[in-house]
């Protein structure tokens, strides 16, 4: 029996009269990666937000299981590691202070973000507002993996990263999958991704 599993069935979501997701389904288990592909505006980010518990679907259901136990929506939201382009951090706080805040909120030692920040080559003392778009993406990676989640949801995971950043991010993803985690990765282009166990193509 897999340690972790994520399944979604018949998910639909509309914004006013615009149907963004229409009865989409998929599943992924420990060690696997579920790839979501589709052009801009096809609903990839909406799907990931529904899977993270940040957006309630109009129809359908999401089932996340860890250690044989189904997670409630609130619990799922707090346990997933989500990387999304619209996640931002506090302008007035430095990289290390933002990660310290996240660590405290997640019940981790305040300094627990230091190792991942160093690995990602983040400038610890620089405030969020002074980070380049690539460094911001690296901080989003640090935020997503800081608490070692079983379920990693990646929306355009390598956006804005340079070669070095993408190499580190891919290494983090490989380690996550090797350690029994599972991932859902969404991208408008066909990215070479490891251990793809399922795929969903969305149309606009």
């Amino acid at each position, binding site marked *: 029996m897999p340690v972790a599993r994520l399944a979604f069935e018949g998910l639909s979501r509309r914004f006013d009269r615009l149907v963004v997701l229409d009865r989409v389904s998929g599943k992924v288990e420990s060690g696997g990666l579920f790839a979501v592909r589709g052009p801009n505006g096809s609903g990839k980010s909406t799907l990931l*937000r529904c899977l*993270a*518990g*940040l*957006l*309630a679907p109009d129809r359908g259901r999401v089932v996340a299981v860890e250690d044989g136990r189904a997670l409630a929506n*609130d619990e799922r*939201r*707090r346990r*997933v590691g*989500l990387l*999304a382009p*619209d*996640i*931002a*951090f*506090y*302008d*007035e*706080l430095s990289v290390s*202070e933002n990660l310290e*805040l*996240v660590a*405290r*909120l*997640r*019940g981790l030692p305040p300094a627990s973000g230091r190792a991942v920040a160093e690995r990602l080559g983040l400038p610890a003392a620089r405030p969020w507002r002074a980070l380049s778009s690539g460094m911001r993406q690296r901080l989003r990676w640090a*935020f997503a993996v800081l608490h070692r989640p079983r379920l990693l949801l990646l929306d355009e995971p390598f956006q804005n990263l340079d070669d070095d950043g993408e190499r580190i991010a891919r290494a983090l993803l490989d380690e996550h999958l090797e350690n029994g985690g599972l991932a859902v990765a969404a991208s408008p282009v066909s990215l070479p991704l490891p251990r793809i166990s399922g795929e969903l193509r969305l149309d606009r």
Partner: protein
Amino acid sequence: MSSGWTAEAAAVFAKDWRAERRARHAVATLVLFAITTLVIASLALGPIGATPGERSDVASALLWILLLFAAAAGLPRVFVHEEESHTATVLRLAARPSAVFAGKLAWVASLLALLEAVATPLALALFDLPVASPGRLVLALGAGGAGLAAATTLLAAIVAQGRGATTLFAALAFPLLVPLAVLAVAATRAALGGGDAGGVLVQLFLYDSTIMVAGFLLFPVIWAP
């Protein structure tokens, strides 16, 4: 409440103060607003020609009008800024809703306490007011400030939800804030003038308890995606 929950709430509180210390948005705006309002009011009304009783009536009402408007002016910083700058997603993903509410409530309460600490002595000096019962004045300001902080935090969470929230805000603000203002003014007036404030203070504490319980019950629903 677990230690983890307390640590989460403390982290939200500390984050807001750390950001405020660097940006100085709220404190500078609120203190400047308080000083300007009190100086203009004292120049317009003046202590001459009014009895101490009349002056304490005016000053109590003025002080609480000032605090209500200051709270309303600082209100968007509590949650709207988090939503607009997309940092709310970080809080939604990492913290329990009740801990977010507690942290924000503590931040607003501390901000109002700071404002009271600046505005009250200034109002007493400008209006040349004696204080009959300093202890009761502190209680009145504390209880009124706690109720105002809880009501403001809850209303701020509603306002931050965008469309349709303005109507709900207007419908809730009046019944939430008017009883508080009436009780807080009465308690402050009694503390300044030497009247019996016991009954009013009890009502104020009951108001605080009710609004805080309502806040902790309602906030997770308001905050939920």
